[in-house]
């Protein structure tokens, strides 16, 4: 990229406290937390469960309002893949994608190429209930990319799937990512997934969460999960986590 990258997301001094449901004690998940994501950059946030990764993503998605700090993201068109597919079970697969397209003011016909890309053309008219868990997550991925998002948010997108299915979907995601430049935030507890997919990996630990390590991933796409460089990076992420 010749021009200096512009900032897509700027989080500054974010603070968020939850009240623990059992003890009633306040839990500060994020405190004075700052992060930027450049345009065209995919940033992975890695951390153990409960380190505030999902809270962070919810703040960016506008699902959680932080108590302190500022969130600058403008009004990008979002494509979001959650840990669960979150499909409307009463609508056929294609209709699930079409609803997101219509809400974004796009042509419903855009559902077909993306369903083709995720290999679900023959299931377009099926209800989600006949699909496997992996196929349902593919629908969620198709929905996220169909809307031609400016910003893709991925919240542990493959952690509910078996490892073999998850691997296939990571490669599928990489393929979709390469089709055109966009920005993204990936939240995961899988260091290898972060190394494989992201341009920059941020490691979170502690409560409130702080950044304990940051790695730039100097590999062009497509990347392979067998790449020793990525494996080495994964080892360093694990070390930072521990």
């Amino acid at each position, binding site marked *: 990229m010749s021009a200096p990258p512009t900032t897509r997301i700027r989080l500054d001094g974010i603070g968020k406290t939850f009240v623990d449901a059992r003890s009633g004690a306040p839990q500060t998940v994020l405190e004075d937390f700052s992060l930027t994501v450049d345009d065209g950059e995919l940033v992975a946030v890695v951390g153990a469960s409960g380190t505030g990764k999902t809270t962070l993503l919810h703040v960016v998605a506008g*699902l959680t309002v932080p108590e302190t700090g500022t969130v600058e993201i403008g009004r990008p068109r979002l494509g979001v893949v*959650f840990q669960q597919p*979150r499909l409307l079970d*009463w*609508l056929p697969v294609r209709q699930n994608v079409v609803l997101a397209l219509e*809400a*974004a003011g796009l042509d419903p016909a855009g559902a077909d190429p993306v369903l083709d890309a995720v290999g679900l053309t023959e299931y377009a008219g099926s209800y989600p209930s006949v699909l496997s868990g992996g196929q349902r997550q593919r629908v969620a991925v198709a929905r996220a990319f169909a809307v031609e998002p400016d910003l893709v948010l991925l919240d542990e997108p493959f952690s509910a799937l078996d490892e073999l299915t998850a691997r296939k979907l990571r490669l599928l995601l990489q393929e979709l990512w390469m089709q055109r430049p966009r920005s993204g935030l990936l939240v995961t507890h899988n260091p290898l997934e972060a190394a494989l997919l992201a341009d920059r990996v941020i490691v979170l630990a502690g409560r409130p969460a702080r950044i304990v390590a940051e790695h730039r991933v100097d590999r062009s796409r497509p990347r392979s999960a067998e790449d020793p460089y990525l494996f080495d990076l994964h080892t360093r992420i694990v070390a930072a986590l521990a």
Partner: protein
Amino acid sequence: MTSTDTAAGRTAAAPAGRPTGTVPPPERPAVPAPPRRLLRAAGPAALFLVLAALAWQLMAVLLDSVLVPTVGDVVTELVGIVVDGSFAEQLGITVLRVALGFALAFLVAVAVGIAMGRNEFARRFFEPAVLLGLTIPGLVWALLCVIWFGVGLANPVIAVALASAPALVLTIYQGVRSVDPDLLEMAHVYRFSRSTRLRRLWLPALAPSLFAGARLGLSLGWKVIVLVEVFGMSSGVGYQLNNAFAGQNVGAVLAWTLLFAVVMAVLEYGVLQGLERRASRWRKVVSV
């Protein structure tokens, strides 16, 4: 009859005209169901009806009283009011009153139920009204509405609405609480419009509660309308019952009651269940 419907519905679960990917929808089994299955499904119910009629007849013969008419007397009354058209006419009047009252209750209950499920203040605000409403006997609503609204259409309509709304509100409120908040987040991040959310998310997600509430509300409505018509109206099934009662015509009382009950059961189980099956077609695919 009801059990036959259900059994047939379950076996004929193939979604009509919906392609389901590589899983081919199984052919709808030839309708009507084989006689043996029909017998197994409807047999016990038919046996009950026959035995009940026999027991009644035995009692009528043994007691030999004008207060306990024979099955033959009841059937004669029954055929009489059907043939001379009075049943259809009075039933039409009663059903219209129930339908209007129920529609009013349903509209209010959807609004209040959703508000209670979504808003803590609304929940606390409406809760006492719902709980009180649930415990007030239908008879009281009937009496009060006769006193307040006289003999106009407002009386039966408002009585039915008041009697059925609390149960409807409660069912819809519980339905709203059970809607997956994850789906609401999804609708938020994809910026679904208000109308898309209502039509594509809330209504389908609430459909089971709406149907359960409708069935409950209607069954309460039937009971109240008869009381209102007994006390304060000069037409309708309840009025006819009161007439028969005043003339000490027990056969007519039984004939009106039986016919009314059968029609209501057909509406409730036939029509409502049919609609519900249509609305939940997508669920059936799971069993394919």
